[in-house]
């Protein structure tokens, strides 16, 4: 197997990955840095982030306010030291992206404008119309490409992390263009590969964001933290699930049921449509379950009404939403309501990492959605994720760079490389009776039906059994494409393998948590239980399935209180 060596390898080239690469390059121009991504960086899911990036920039706002909003939004499961660090770092990240060219929307005075967002008590979402992630990505990509010591491996699919005695030593990756599996040796590796919500049927996720990095780290022995906490975004466009930004409600949009009622008044009288996402999604789901959804060809839905905002405001503040609604929903938001329902949107859980983005494996770092630091606890506030990608992307890159300057390369075990080569070749050679797409769709259906917004113990158990059945069936798949070059059939198989692993971890983590906290709502345990469950779930890989441990939550300033909006 051909071996390539770098000091630092960043896996994933979304916001966190690119930010990590720039941060590492800034530490030392002598470092040899690689960014490895399964598609071109600008195809990363971060470009789909729409509404904004949270940062305290207004003197009337405060770090404590942002931190408290985040902690409360997290239903007190966030590690508060991480939150406090995060809110202080966010403003300078906004300035950096601005300096690189991000076309932020402006106030009449020429400063970066901010809008309101759910769960934030101050309008602190910096935004570039409704294409914030897209513009941040293009700005950082332009910057990252300007460093001569960052080498890009576009369309290289990482398949495994190689560790040795508690330290990461490298990884394996397939070059899509040739189909050849390569070994990479590195002193530090940053995982920035995004979330896993493609395990669900109705999701805002890009097709390619399949949680690979989480699964790779998990198999390499890193625990996945708080994986039961999956955020459902209140406004997934019907029928595709494409995101309609919370910014639409931030700008004043209404949510309306079949009776024409702004039903949020019964769930969050004060915040209404701008309550945090878990609250709004539960409200929508309740409306639908109780028969007050509007009826459409794809089943019951909720109406997002922007008509009163007027054409001018919609065009200026929400141009992408109008275009997407027209092209993919067949409705013009200026004249019609947008049909939406909750969609799987974000993983609060992920690769366990600390405030320095270090995982328990030496030399391995994680940032962005694939990581769990834990900043978002049981429920993330809108606009905190792009901010997290910037803040902790930078931290992970910097820490990885410092480690690489101090550490040496370690030998890649030939045995482990051969084992990975054998695993990938075996999957590529499979000629069984199961279609990859059928297994994938079954998995996604199970997750939608049994591990959705409202959960129940018996359903979770049934879902787990079904997912485990699918894992068994995976050995009987057929990879029809037998070519080497650009084999997307093999790619789909490897991604499905990762997703099945993550679906299992998600359910196993959810099962014992007999309480309702943030995005994890148990109809059989409708109350939050701080006595027993104010703790993080850690899922460790074993060949018989995840083994769970628990870790305490760091509380600094804000002891848990009742959470109302």
């Amino acid at each position: 197997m051909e071996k390539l060596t770098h000091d630092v390898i960043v896996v994933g080239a979304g916001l966190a990955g690119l930010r990590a690469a720039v941060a590492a390059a800034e530490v030392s121009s002598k470092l040899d840095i690689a960014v490895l991504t399964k598609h071109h960086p600008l195809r990363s899911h971060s470009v789909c982030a729409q509404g904004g990036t949270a940062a305290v920039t207004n003197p009337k706002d405060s770090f404590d306010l942002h931190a408290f909003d985040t902690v409360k939004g997290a239903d007190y499961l966030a590690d508060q030291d991480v939150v406090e660090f995060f809110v202080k770092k966010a403003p300078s990240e906004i300035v950096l992206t601005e300096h690189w060219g991000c076309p932020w929307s402006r106030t009449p005075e020429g400063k970066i404008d901010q809008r309101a967002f759910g769960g934030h008590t101050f309008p602190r979402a910096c935004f570039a119309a409704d294409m914030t992630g897209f513009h941040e990505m293009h700005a950082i990509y332009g910057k990252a490409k300007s460093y001569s010591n960052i080498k890009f491996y576009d369309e290289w699919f990482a398949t495994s992390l190689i560790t040795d005695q508690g330290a990461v030593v490298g990884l394996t990756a397939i070059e899509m263009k040739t189909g050849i599996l390569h070994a990479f040796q590195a002193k530090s590796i940053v995982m920035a590969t995004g979330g896993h919500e493609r395990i669900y049927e109705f999701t805002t996720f890009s097709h390619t964001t399949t949680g690979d990095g989480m699964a790779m780290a998990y198999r390499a022995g890193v625990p996945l933290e708080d994986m039961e906490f999956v955020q459902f975004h209140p406004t997934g466009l019907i029928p595709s699930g494409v995101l309609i930004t919370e910014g639409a409600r931030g700008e004043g949009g209404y949510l309306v049921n079949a009776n024409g009622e702004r039903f949020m008044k019964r769930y969050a009288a004060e915040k209404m449509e701008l309550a945090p996402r878990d609250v709004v999604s539960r409200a929508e789901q309740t409306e639908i379950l109780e028969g007050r959804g509007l009826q459409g060809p794809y089943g019951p839905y909720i109406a997002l009404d922007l008509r009163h905002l007027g054409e001018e405001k919609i065009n200026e503040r929400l141009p992408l939403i109008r275009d997407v609604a027209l092209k993919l929903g067949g409705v013009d938001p200026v004249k019609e309501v947008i049909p939406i329902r909750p969609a799987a949107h974000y993983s609060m859980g992920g690769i366990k990492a600390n405030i320095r983005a270090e995982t328990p494996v030496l030399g391995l770092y994680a940032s962005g959605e694939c990581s769990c630091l834990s900043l978002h606890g049981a429920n993330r506030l809108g606009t905190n994720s792009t901010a997290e990608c910037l803040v902790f992307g930078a931290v992970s890159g910097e820490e990885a760079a410092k480690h690489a300057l101090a550490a040496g390369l370690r030998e890649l075990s030939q045995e482990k490389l051969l084992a990975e080569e054998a695993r990938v070749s075996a999957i590529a050679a499979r000629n069984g009776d199961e279609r990859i797409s059928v297994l994938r769709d079954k998995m996604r259906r199970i997750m939608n039906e049994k591990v959705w917004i409202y959960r129940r113990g018996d359903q979770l158990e049934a879902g787990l059994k079904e997912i485990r059945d699918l894992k068994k069936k995976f050995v009987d798949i057929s990879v029809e494409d037998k070519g080497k070059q650009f084999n997307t059939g093999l790619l789909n198989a490897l991604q499905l393998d990762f997703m099945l692993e993550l679906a299992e971890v998600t359910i196993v983590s959810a099962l014992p948590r007999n309480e309702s906290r943030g995005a994890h709502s148990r109809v059989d345990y409708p109350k939050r239980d701080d006595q027993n469950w104010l703790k993080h779930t850690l899922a460790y890989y074993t060949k018989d399935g995840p083994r769970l441990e628990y870790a305490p939550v760091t509380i600094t300033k804000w002891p848990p209180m009742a959470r109302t909006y």
Partner: protein
Amino acid sequence: MGVETEKIVELTISRFDPETGKHYTSSYKVPVRKGTTLLEALMYIKDNLDGTLTFRHSCRMGICGSCAVNVNGKPMLACYTQVLDLKENRLLIEPLSNMRVIKDLVVDIDPFFEKLMKIKNYLVKPEAEFQKPHEFLQSPEDLKKFWDLTLCIKCSICYSACPATIDERFLGPASLTANYRFIADSRDQGGSERLKPMADNIWLCTQCNSCTLFCPKLVGCANAIVDDHSLLVETGDIPKTVKDVLESVYKYHNPMGTNQSKRVDWAKDLNITVFPETKKADILLFTCCSTTYDARNMEIAKAMAFILAKMGVSFTTLGTEEWCCGDHILRLGEKGLFEELAAHNIEMFRQFSAEKIVTLSPHCYNTFKKDKPYSDAKLNVVHYTQFLAEAIKKGIINPAKPVNRKVAYHDPCFLGKRNEVYDQPREILRSLPGLQLVEMKRTRQSSFCCGGGAGRVWTEEAESEKRPCVDRVKEALSLGVDTIAVACPFCVTTLEDAVKVLDVEGKIAVKDVLELLREAI
């Protein structure tokens, strides 16, 4: 739950197997309902019919730029295209043009991005500025000046549709647009540094408008390139060929560098009237510098005069008072000179009180209709193909003599892509007895530019294989036609030149539609 299938659409997909080097096509029947995107149709095939079909995709919401393909010859994002909107029961899906195919619909995007990296995709300012802990101020008005150009998703559709990119020196529409996006950004101080990477290649742009026409984000690439041109013209850092054209127009009011007194020499054997002697006529014929000064293209003007006389239509020209319309000049970036030309012509139109202007060139037609200050003057202008197609329909002209030619019609960009005049030239050709009309593979909106626009007809310096006109004539030759018909004097010049370069003068002729019509009368 769900929506019923509305119809079955057959997708024929161009395939390439890199293992065997074999190109082939596969056809699949796909059930389509309201809302089915082309990407969903492709995924339906991969999931249910053929797991080997290979294509890129990711965001499925038109923002990541992965899934661009050619559909019936037109490039578009598969995820942002509703199959029912295409209104076809059969679709031909091909990889993007101008790019090496890796497998099936996957093309090599590296050259596209390598060119993008030739410009600086970040703000340029003195280093000290970046040490400031706060944002650079920018008014909403200043943001608006470049905002639309920031919407480019780098899908490479423009690059694939662009005729100039067949010369690898050309940076391509997306890169040149990105460059102007930074130049127009009030925060940027890149200045002349930003002009360097494009100075020697931007003149290959023909302003055919394909980039803008097919951009899924409606980014005005072609206009951004004109703005880039203007900056280069301002600095004077322009090739001698471009300088010569501009100087000719400046001195003589035409790009040929010929004295205006010779403007009506083309008609010296004809009995035509000119302004200001003639104050009234049915139409004002705006002849175009090319058809009045270029010996070859005078035939086009003469054919028009002959046909108008046959029709019994009284016409006149502005004579020596006809100045270059300025279309090429505007698109070369010399906006001041363009305005001077326009002011003169508009004044002449006013003095003549022209009720109807007929142009021989699509370039004059386009600029009179679309560009200020002409467009403000609300001129009643038509291209001759529109005027004559109408006359034939009404029986005012009756083409009776057989024109025994097998003809491929080449859509001129300024008539087709920019003004959607696709049918009238074809109607004229179809009315000619004996003439067999064949369609080019790249036709109508997908027409491949002759390479003559934005002054390139006079500034051409690319190697012959990298000239769009040569590419285009090869395409016509592959159809086995003996004539390429055009409706633009600049297309005549470039394509005839390509015929000479390819040494196929005995095989194929280039004729203006007017000349063919003349043969039939």
